[in-house]
Structure formats: C-alpha cells, structure tokens
C-alpha cells in the first residue's frame, strides 16, 4: 500500500516532462506557435529560439526524469531495512556540473551577440523612412513629403496604417508623445519601447508583401489593449503610388495644428 503511494507520486512527477514535451510538440500543429516570420533578420532570432529550446529541452527532460527515477527508486517503502546513503557530496561532481553549464552558458552568451547587434546596433546608414510617434492610444505616422525630408511642412501625416516597401531596408524613427509604449511587430520579430524624450531608431527588412499587426507591448493606460495598427508591405512601385495617393489626399484637405502644435489632417 505504501509502495503504491510512492509509485503514484513518482508517476505524477514523471507527468511533468511527459506532458511538458507533449505541450510543445502539439503547439505548432494547433497553431499556437511562433507567428509567420516575414523579416530578413527573424530567421536568426527564431533559430536561436529553437536552439535554446533544444538545449533547455534536453536539460529539462534529463533532470525531470532523474528526479522521477530517484523518487521511484528511493521510496522508503521500496528500500526495506536499507539505510539511506550517508554521503555529503562529491567534489568531482560539483566541478563537473559547474564547469559544463558555465561553458554552455558562456558559449550561448557569445553565440547570440551577433544577432543582437544586427537588430539593435548595426544601424543602416540612411535617413528615416518614416517616423512613428506613439501616443495614447494610437500610432501616429509621419512620412517625408515630396521633398524627401522629414520635419518639413509637406510631411505626410497618417494614423495606424503603416505602409512600407518590401525587400528594402527601412529605418523607423520611434518617438512617444506621452507615456511609454512599445512598438511590437510579431511577424517581424521586432520590439522596441517608445520613450518620451528619446528618438530611437528601429530597422528591419520585410521579405513578403502583406499586412500584419502592430501591437503595443508596454502598458500605456486604460486603452492599451486597443492600440492597434497595421503594417503593410508592398512592392516599391506600389509603395510610390500609395505615397502619391496619400500626398494628394492630404493636399486636398488643409492641415491644421492641434493643441500640441503638431500638424494633423482633419
């Protein structure tokens, strides 16, 4: 009876790695998994994710199965009169299980630096394609006007509807007008907080045409959940035509200043 209880508890602990692995195995097939990646750098991030998943998965299975096995085997009810092993540790084991994880973690630390630098440090040498100004609870967009320069009176002002050319480096200049926001593009593996008082460059290259979500990922107030935008990649000619259409629409309406002094269209 006592042994049966021990077996029951051991199996409960075995359920952790079994169901844990099953959850991750099933997730992609029920579409609860990484969303489609349409960026150039995303592959690097995803493969690092899979690499860490494999690495931690092996450690997870090994340690959890060991724990199960020890619970199964060293149940007092299964050991008869035998005493527990009187041992205070093992210097060799301590050295082994310090050095191997240390080397692995150090390798991981160095291995990933390049991917990080590509997304956050190696900024392409180009003027901003568009300025994104976050505010409660929308994404304001400012494209250079016909003069090709940002910050001039003919700038194009839009809200939430971000169009960008596909297969080209784009540089977004990210600002916030009020509180913290975070510019999250799940399908481009991009996330960057927008901080009032800072101009933060964000760059990426879309590889497929199509339209995806822009999500705010930093709590910005009661309407945080509805701060939704769309990012649409189109070919360069389509993008130029789209810009031209938007210029014409804006010129048709007189821009006015809101209380903040920003030019907006009605």
């Amino acid at each position: 009876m006592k042994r049966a209880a021990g077996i029951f508890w051991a199996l409960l602990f075995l359920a952790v790695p079994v169901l844990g692995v099953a959850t991750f195995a099933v997730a992609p097939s029920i579409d609860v998994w990484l969303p489609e990646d349409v960026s150039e750098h995303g592959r690097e991030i995803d493969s690092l994710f899979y690499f860490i998943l494999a690495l931690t998965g092996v450690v997870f299975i090994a340690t959890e199965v060991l724990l199960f096995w020890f619970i199964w085997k060293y149940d007092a009810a299964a050991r008869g009169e035998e005493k527990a092993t009187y041992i205070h540790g093992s210097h060799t084991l301590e050295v082994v299980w310090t050095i191997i994880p240390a080397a692995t973690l150090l390798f991981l630390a160095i291995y990933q630096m390049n991917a990080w630098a590509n997304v956050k440090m190696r900024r392409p040498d180009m003027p901003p394609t568009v300025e994104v100004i976050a505010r409660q609870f929308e994404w304001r967009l400012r494209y250079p006007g016909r003069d090709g320069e940002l910050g001039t009176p003919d700038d194009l002002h839009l809200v939430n509807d971000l169009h960008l050319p596909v297969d080209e480096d784009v540089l977004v200049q990210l600002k916030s007008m009020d509180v913290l926001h975070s510019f999250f593009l799940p399908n481009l593996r991009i996330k960057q907080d927008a901080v009032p008082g800072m101009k933060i460059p964000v760059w990426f290259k879309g590889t497929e045409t199509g339209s995806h979500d822009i999500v705010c990922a930093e709590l910005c107030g009661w309407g945080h959940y509805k701060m939704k935008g769309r990012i649409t990649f189109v070919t360069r000619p389509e993008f130029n035509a789209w810009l031209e259409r938007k210029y014409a629409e804006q010129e048709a309406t007189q821009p006015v200043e809101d209380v903040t002094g920003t030019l907006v269209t009605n």
Partner: protein
Amino acid sequence: MSTVTAPPTVDHASAQVRKPHPVATFLSTYVFSKDHKVIGLQFLFSTLLWFLIGGLLALAVRWQVAWPWSDVPVVGKLFAQQGGQMSPEFYTMLFTMHATVMIFLVIIPILAGAFGNFLIPLMIGADDMAFPTLNMLSYWFMWPAFIAFGASFFVEGGAASGGWTSYPPLSTNIAASPGSGWGQTLWLIGLTFVGVSSMLGSVNYMTTIILMRAPGMTMFRLPMTIWAMFITAVLQAFALPVLTAAGFMQLADRMFATGFFSPEGNIVNNAIAGPGGGQPLLWQHLFWFYSHPAVYIMILPAMGMVSDILTCFARKPLFGYRPMVYSIAGIAGLGFIVWGHHMFMSGMNPALGITFMVSTMMIALPSAVKTFNWLGTVWGGRIQFTTSMLFALSFVSMFIIGGLSGIFMAATPVDIFIHDTYFIVAHFHYVLFAGTAMGVWAAIYFWYPKMFGRTMNEFWGKVHFFLTFIFLNGTFFTMHILGAVGFPRRLADAYHYETFHHLQPMNAFMTYCAIGMVASQIIFAINFFWSMFYGPVASRNPWNANGLEWTAPSPPGHGNFDYQPVVYRGPYEYSVPGVEKDHLMQTDPPNAEAAAAAAASH
C-alpha cells in the same frame, strides 16, 4: 561534517544573561508582542489573508482574459457600472494590484517576516531576536501599508493601475490614467512602509544570526534556511534604500512636479505635462536595481527551507552543503548586476544590454548547481512521502522549469520577441508560484507542529498538494506556448488582433485551471484552521529532524528553549553509519555517537 568538536567553554552566546520576562497581558502577548514567534505568526496570518485577496484579484484578471467584456459572475455588480462587465481601466488596476499584493504583501513578508521571524532564533538556538522591539515594529509598520494598499481600491479613480513596476510618466502623470491619481500616491506610501518593515527585519536578522548563535553553532553548521535568510537580509539591506529613494522621487514628481522621470515637452491627454527635465529610464534603472535583487529575496528563503525539508524526508545529508552556501552567495552577488535584463527593449544603450546579458547568463549557473545538489540529495535516500516532502519535491521540479525558461529571455535576440509576452508571465509564475509558494506550503506543513503544537491532516494535505500541482501546471505551463505566439501581457482584450484571435479557447482552459487552483486552497484553509484545534498533538520532534528548533517544546514558550542548546555537529546528520537511530540531532552529544558505535562493535 560529522567531526565532533568539544563544546566551547565560554563564548559570546553562552555568556548571555537571561532576564526574566515581564508579566504578560493579552495585549503584550498577542498584539504588541515582542516574541519573535508571535510576530512570525502575525506575519503568517496577515500574509495568508492577503494571499487570498491576491488570488481573487488574479481570478478576476483571468476572467477578463478568457471572456473579455462578459459579465463577471457573483461579484460583477459590486464594482462595475455597466451591468456586470469590467471596464478596461478596472482591468489594468486588477493586474497592477494582483502583482503588488502578491509581491509586497505576500511573498516578501511571508518568507522573511513569517518564516524568518519564527525560525531564525529557534534554528540558531537563541531565546529571541537581537532587537525585539524593532521586530515588533517591523510587523506594525506593515499596517500602514495594508491600509494604504487596501484603501486605494476605494478612492476616486481606483487603485494604482500603472503596473506593479509603476513606470513613469504613466504613473506620475495624473492625466495619463485614472489610477494615477490618489491610487498611485497611496501605492507609493504603502511601498515605503513595506520597505521600512523589511529594513527593520533585515537589520534584526543579520545581527541575530551573527551574534546570537548557540555555543558550537558555527556559520558552517547553520541550516540552509538560516543561510538563505541571512543572505536575503543582506540583499534587502543593500538594495532597499535605492527603491525607497526612487519612491520618494516619484512621489515628489507627482506632488511637487520635480520632473525626475519626465522629459521636457511631454504631452499627455492633449495637455502639456509638467516642466520635465528628467528621464523615464532613470526610474527603470532605480526600480530594477532593487526589484531584481528582490526576485532573489522572493526565492532564496524558499530554497533554504526546501533544502532542509528534502534532507529530513530523504533521511540523507544535504548533497554539497558548501557549494549550496556558495551558490546562494553567488546568486546574491550576481543579483546586483543583472537588473538591466528587464530593460533590453527599453531604449537603454544596446551595448549595455550585452553586459547585462552576459551577467544574466552567468546567474543561471548557481541556480543550476543548486538544482543538481537537490537531485543529489534525493538520490540514495529513503524518501518519506509526507505532504511537506511532496511540496518540496515539486519545488525542485517546478524550479527547473522556471530556471530554464529564464534562459530564453536572457538571450537578448529571443527576448526581442518574447519580452512582455505570456512567456515572461509563465516564467515568473513558475519561479514565484510553482517555486516559492510551493516551498512556503512545504514549510507550513513542516513547521506547523512547532508553531501550533499540533500536526496538520496528512490525507487532506496530500489532496491539497495534488490538486494545486495539477491546476498550477494547467494554468501556467500553457502560458509558454501562448508566449511563443507573442501573446502580450496586460491586454484587456487581445482577440481583435489577427495574430491572437484564435487563442481564446486556450485562455479559457487556463482560467478553468486557475479557478480550480484557487478553489483547492479551500481544502488548505480548512485543514490549517481545523488542525490548530483538533489536529493530533505533536511531540517536540515529530519528523525526527535534526535542527535545534526540534529540541524546544511544541510550541515553544517565551524564551524558546527550556535549556541552553549546545551544538556538536552540522544540521544534516541523517542515516549516520554505525548509529542505531537514523539521525543525529545537532544537540546530540558526541558520546552518544561513540557509545552507539561501541555498542555496535561488541
């Protein structure tokens, strides 16, 4: 570690003069008590009550995530204006206060306040804390915090709703959010009092552990619980002043428009806000400089207690005592230089991010060493499946998950995708709930006989364990794969996004599990209170454990020990060969061992 040293002749601890205790009244015994055990229990009861409140807040959060904008059952009419559905600002308040309550009013005070207070003098063989009056104050300073946090639900605009991290300008600008009015001010006041309480406690713990150990209780004969409490107290003492200062700066920003954390020309709600001249990132640095070490303040004591419980019910010495001590010290040391990993996406210099990434990767190492040593402790043991042991084993099992998922977000490129998603929510719930809370339950079932002189019901304890274990994994494990989709935290309704619209059924499943998890605690609550009056009466040492606390009566009277305990050995002398009984208490004199060995040889 079984080496025997002669009892020291005279040292600081045995030279203490025992003063007779003054005549006790009801008020001085149970309310304004200076007895560390009563103070510990006061902390325990208060924090368990807040645990209930925090859990109910979590259920309300889960309700909204699973079925946005649907009528909240039972309590909906109490707080909602339109029918029974919650407003988005109410939802932001819920998760802000859930985290605030759980972190500042439950986890930190239940570990340091309840168990630190109750166990430290008992386990080191002292008659009380070094500063009993400060100790009493450390509990009573929690009350202004209880009142401030509790009252903030009822002020105009509701309680704080800027997240438990209270990032400015959202939290400093009154126009930015309804909860950024009085709610946030009360939040900051409450936080300050929690800080004062923690500081009074930590000074006391350090002094007590350094100066008041029983004769023979060297530092390396301390149980892991005490080592963990000691290092936690050091962490508190060094990190807390920074948070307190930052809190006052935020309070000044709000009340006197000092603008420490707000830049110039900030426009909130179409109105120019304050003079500015500050930096929002400054708050994040100061906040996380405390709150990252605080993450370890919230786990180390549980690790210590679990180490003691595992050895007792595996009837085996702790595997690698010194590496275990060094790894706690390593976690504490590195814990001070990893705060920036909360800020990889914040706009902080990305090169600085690399520095924090390397230190963060390295802090996984001492945690790994601890896990391997726990496995080593269970290996070759004679496991007794008590409720306490099951919770302790599940701590190890769950901590593995929480530890490993941390590596994903330490990797900066992966963090770009999973930062602020449910992957993070899964990670810290595995550490704090599946880790610390399970460790706390292990400790409650383990030390309950010492606290109340009776033992909790084992059968219902195991039912409580089984249900909690199943439901917590149902709730939190699935969050990992939600995070893999990029499902963001803190959204009142995410299903209008194309990327997340199909995730509602999974969230509904998690909410069912969460309801089951909270409901399972009814079993615990009944067992806890019923056993206090009707549980089987406990002997001094019901588990045949080794620590000094088990030589005192259950429960110990004021002054703890009926004789001066003298320590002859380390705390984990289980199953010593040649000794008839399977454990040697720290107070068992060396001749007992020698006599047993002699008897065995004849």
